């Protein structure tokens, strides 16, 4: 029983990475009906920018002697990194996706993939092959509830990602920009005629998605401190699976499916030998998609997307 609860805690943490990344895929899809295949690498870039920001902040603290507490540095890091990484997203939209809006969808997918490879290689070229380790901004303490061990980092990771998801939900439901995005995902053709420019909504979507991916990158760096340029590839593709599983273009679906993917993977590794994790997890996904071909919240025809 304790082991079961322990695995739930681990799955929540693991799922929040997937969910945060999957949200970016899903939002871009709902607006442009294209997948941003560079998204996994934006996650990686976010982690590296976060590394840079955190190191700079720590250096600032050491230099000036202003005693900033660790949690404040962490929050500042997350906010600043989200801000910077959103420009990466805007840049990718401008360079790779805007010229291809009318082109066949596969071309945009290939462009995204290639931008991803450029980001990985560029990182490798600039920083070299050495692995960086993410600075530990907060002291790790372990709480024990019954037989379940919960570190404060796990609570923080799940908490921050749930908060971000809630904020995103409020933004999309309540703000004017969110309304424009919902309208755009409802009807791609008519909304530009109503005076809402797709050239402003699409970069905004990319920016928000990238910011979420950056937050995921920092949280990932807290949990698994080793950064390498290819860390986004596998995680990104798996989050893409989650985005599809949730139903394309569905924000709630993407978040839920992200957590579900985390649960499936962790529990597959717990029940079966851990090397069989991918086999079991993806067989389950294959089965789900065979039985329910449009995901959980998706609709059969993509003209009616929800956001």
């Amino acid at each position, binding site marked *: 029983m304790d082991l079961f609860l322990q695995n739930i805690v681990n799955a929540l943490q693991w799922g929040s990475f997937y969910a945060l990344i999957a949200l970016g895929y899903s939002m871009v899809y709902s607006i442009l009906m294209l997948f941003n295949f560079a998204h996994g690498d934006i996650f990686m870039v976010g982690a590296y920018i976060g590394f840079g920001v955190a190191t700079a902040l720590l250096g600032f603290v050491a230099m000036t002697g202003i005693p900033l507490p660790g949690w404040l540095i962490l929050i500042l890091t997350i906010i600043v990194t989200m801000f910077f990484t959103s420009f990466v997203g805007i840049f990718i939209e401008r*360079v790779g996706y805007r*010229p291809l809006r009318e082109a066949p969808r596969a071309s945009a997918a290939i462009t995204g993939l*290639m931008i991803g490879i450029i980001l990985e290689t560029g990182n490798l070229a600039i920083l070299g092959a050495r692995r960086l380790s993410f600075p530990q901004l907060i002291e790790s303490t372990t709480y024990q509830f019954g037989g379940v061990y919960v570190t404060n980092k796990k609570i923080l990771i799940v908490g921050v990602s749930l908060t971000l998801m809630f904020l995103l939900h409020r933004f999309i439901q309540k703000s004017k920009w969110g309304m424009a995005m919902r309208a755009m995902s409802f009807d791609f053709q008519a909304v530009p005629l109503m005076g809402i420019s797709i050239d402003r909504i699409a970069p905004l979507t990319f920016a928000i998605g990238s910011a979420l991916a950056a937050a995921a990158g920092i949280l990932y760096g807290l949990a698994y401190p080793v950064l390498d340029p290819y860390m986004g590839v596998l995680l990104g593709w798996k989050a893409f699976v989650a985005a*599809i599983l949730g139903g394309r273009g569905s924000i709630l679906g993407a978040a839920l499916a992200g957590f579900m993917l985390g649960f499936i993977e962790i529990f597959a590794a717990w029940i079966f030998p851990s090397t069989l994790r991918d086999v079991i997890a993806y067989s389950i996904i*294959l089965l789900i998609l065979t039985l329910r071909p449009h995901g959980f919240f998706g609709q059969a025809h993509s003209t009616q997307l929800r956001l």
Partner: protein
Amino acid sequence: MASQEQNTRQGNKKGFRAWLQKLLAGIPLIGWISGLFAAVLIEYFLGDLISYYLGLPKIPVLFGFLTVLKKPLLMPGTTGYLILVYGLPILLIAKSLRKPANRLAAFLDKGPVSIGAVIHLGLFYGAMHFWTDLSDYRLLVLKLTMIAIMLTLSINVINGYMGEFSCSHPGFMALGAYGASTITLLLFANDKLFGDALLPEALGLYFFPLALIAGGLIAALGALVIAIPSFRTRGDYLAIISLAFLFIVKSLIENLEFIGGPRGMSSQPNYSNLPMVFTVMVLCIWIINNFVRSTMGKALNAVRDNELAAEVMTVNTRKTKIIAFMFGAFWAGVAGGLFAHVLRYVNPGSFGIQRLAEILAMVYFGGLNSVTGSIVGAVSISVLSEALRPLEIYKWIIIPLLLIMVMLFRPWGLISFTEFNPKELMKPKEKKIEGK
């Protein structure tokens, strides 16, 4: 061939281009191939001498790309070598053989296509044989390029002709590679995994095609896992299903200890020699080209353009999808089997996301729905990625940038939606003055 590309690149000026067109006009394919053959022979016998007098340390292996990128000062020598060994002989021989070549082409044109094709390919193979005889590196690059052509063609059947976005090709390739390797290692090789050979090793080379076919069939069976869900869904969901399939195959192979697990399989017998790879590739191009030009190929296009309308027009969409997936997977499996015996080592890591990006890059670079495009894409990406090797990781910035450029300016790829007609290619060119 190389000179042709160079010449067209220079021909930006109007008058020069017209002159060039006139210069190159009227030479049938067999003339060009004879020119290539002669150039390769010249390199074979005189290459060392020419490179010595041009101040090069040794024969430029891959059209001088590697030499120039490592030592830029050798640029003039390498250019001179390319012109002396490839450019001039190809042009001169092709030009001077124009009349007999045209007569031969006209004669072959009357007979069946297969005879003409065999003669052309025989000559071409001869050229390749002498070309690769000079260095093992060339041989490896050529074999891998041919395998890349097969992979690209086979994915074009699914992604181009049927219009799905299938991500499972490395998975099919892995199934074929492991299937074929298991058979050859079990039967014909003394190795760690399966122990002594069961059959005399002399039989191996004759059984190898059967092993390849078996590998292809295993891959085709695997394709059923994707083909059956494809009845109900397509597009992004199918992309995910195929991606999940790729993860499953890779992870399954990692977990099966009797085929080596994560360590992979090694010491496959050296059966993938040049004639074998060349023959299989030619067969692959021929069969796939006939397949996509048949009624079945048109049915594929119909399913891509409008599935409902295709169904109404009596196309059996289910059968079409199953056949297309299994057919594409079969050839990917065969290519995988060859791949395993070229490198003589496979492990699950070689069939991951990286390989997928590579294959997708080739097919979308070359052009969808086109056999010629696939060949062009596979050859250019694989030769480019070898030629830019001295740039190390910057290679992986240049190639993606190139691909993005292609996508921005030609969203369907370089040469898309064309038919590949061998008869048209081999026709005599004497009568037509325009066009080369």
